[in-house]
């Protein structure tokens, strides 16, 4: 293993901060909440060093408001929270979608509902990311598994936010947030596109409302009301309908560009383990153990969770004989797999955990063996 300077020992929350700074983030507005608090703490240290701004607001929704305001003023902006805070932010997240304000929201998931399990992992906010705010809209949510992915996907979140002028979620969980691990900082080539907002000319095409650089002598009107292409409120049904279709389709139509998945040993697989986030690591150990026993099994992980890779999952389910779905909730991903597959006969073997602990490789292995017996 190399001993170079790019080899570090960082917790997930610090990886997010360093990746965000590399992506050009200069503003963080937040309100501390476990297990995301270290993101705020580390941003409070790092942003002043680079001339950026850190602000701790009076509550979660105000923090989201600060992020929207900073983004409108030209800063790549970040907030971080956990389930209870995500609930509180939802109204302003909807505003950011309606007004097409680029920003990144990190959700370090913990057990819920309500205050639930502050210091323990869960993946039960994934539907809230999709449907938490009211009204028709599309969402981009990224679900990395490994420290390297967490770094790269945080950078990509800023790119997608700018490109499609929309809030983008990075969803992790308490395990990823708090686990500190040896890790090599990805090279520039691995990080993908990093560029200043002024260079996102394609974002003008992806926006309902043509826009100019803010505070550069142009008139400016930003509203959460349904609005015309000039930004002023309207109730004209045809214009409103067109604007909602725009908000949804700018992401739906870009699915091929946004979709990113990780596949592992799927080529000859009879069984697919479909999972996301931190259980992906337990799944890898389980798959290696199952392979050692002659079971043909592989892993599919959506790294872009929303928009969900419906067609890719459908094609995969058509190829295999059984599916195992480990997740730290009671079946939110399994539901999505069922919906994508559209085949009632496909056998899904769920592995669910809501007790605030990791799913151990043994449990996934047992589900794989059960699936194998049923083939």
């Amino acid at each position: 293993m190399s001993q170079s300077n790019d080899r570090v020992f960082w917790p997930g929350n610090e990886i997010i901060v360093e990746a965000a700074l590399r992506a050009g983030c200069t503003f963080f507005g937040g309100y501390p909440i476990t297990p995301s608090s270290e993101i705020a703490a580390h941003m409070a240290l790092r942003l002043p060093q680079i001339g950026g701004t850190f602000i701790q607001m009076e509550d979660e929704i105000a923090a989201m408001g600060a992020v929207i305001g900073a983004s409108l003023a030209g800063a790549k902006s970040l907030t971080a929270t956990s389930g209870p805070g995500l609930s509180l932010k939802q109204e302003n997240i909807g505003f950011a979608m309606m007004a097409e304000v680029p920003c990144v929201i990190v959700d370090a998931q913990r057990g819920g509902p309500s205050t639930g399990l502050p210091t323990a992992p869960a993946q039960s906010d994934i539907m809230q990311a999709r449907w938490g705010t009211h009204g028709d809209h599309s969402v981009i949510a990224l679900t990395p598994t490994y420290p390297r992915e967490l770094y790269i996907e945080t950078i990509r979140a800023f790119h997608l936010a700018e490109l499609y002028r929309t809030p983008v979620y990075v969803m992790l969980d308490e395990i990823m947030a708090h686990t500190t691990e040896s890790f090599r900082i990805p090279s520039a080539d691995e990080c993908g596109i990093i560029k200043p907002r002024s260079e996102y000319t394609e974002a003008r095409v992806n926006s309902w409302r043509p826009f100019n650089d803010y505070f550069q002598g142009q008139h400016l009107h930003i509203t959460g009301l349904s609005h015309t292409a000039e930004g002023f409120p309207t109730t004209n049904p045809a214009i409103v309908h067109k604007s909602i279709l725009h908000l949804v389709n700018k992401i739906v139509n870009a699915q091929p560009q946004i979709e990113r998945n990780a596949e592992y040993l799927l080529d000859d697989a009879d069984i697919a383990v479909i999972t996301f986030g931190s259980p992906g690591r337990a799944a890898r150990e389980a798959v290696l153990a199952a392979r050692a026993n002659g079971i043909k099994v592989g892993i599919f992980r959506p790294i872009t969770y929303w928009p969900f890779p419906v067609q890719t999952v459908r094609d995969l389910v058509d190829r295999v004989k059984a599916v195992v779905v480990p997740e730290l909730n009671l079946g939110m991903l399994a539901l999505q797999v069922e919906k994508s597959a559209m085949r009632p006969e496909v056998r899904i073997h769920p592995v669910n955990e809501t007790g605030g602990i990791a799913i151990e490789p043994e449990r996934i292995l047992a589900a794989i063996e059960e699936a194998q017996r049923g083939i």
Partner: protein
Amino acid sequence: MKYEIRFAGVGGQGNILAGEWLALAAHGMGRHAVQSPTYTAQVRGGPTSVDVLIDDDEVIFPRLTAIDYFCCLAQRGWDTFSHQLRPDSVVVVAPSLVHKLGPGPQKIYRVPIIEVTKQAVGKMVYTSSVALGSFSFFMPHVVPKDVMVRTIESHAPHGTVENNLRAFQAGWEAAKSTPPVARNEIAEDTHAAVRESRE
């Protein structure tokens, strides 16, 4: 070679920091180190553990599944986090804080960590460094003593390096002169003590 190491106790004892220094030392040696804490919403007093995984290759599953080395500084930590012990796990406990071990095949090193902290440094805030010193004595092949010392020198908060090193060394020496006891003997002792107290 993969090592699975756990510190357990209650919140406020510094277990998580001790685990972090151990993992940092292994990381500094070029190994893949993982430090994974578990604690409750209580600021102090809740059962707390930190798992440290060290491997020459990549660690895939970042949580502990079977304990190679276990250091425990509180009964609540023992009750909550000792279930993944293996028959040949190396176990270090602070005997004044961990009384009821229950039956089991392991050999237990009862290092008087609390008493050593009082004598050697005088401040209980250094308990975790004494524990780390004691624990390190039993795993020189995982992280050599000099590497641990250098890690403490470079990572201990400003103004605490000297005391942390003294605590570490005292813990090391105490472990050196602590013979192992069969867990079953301690378990029986405890039962006897309970019976006596009832009589």
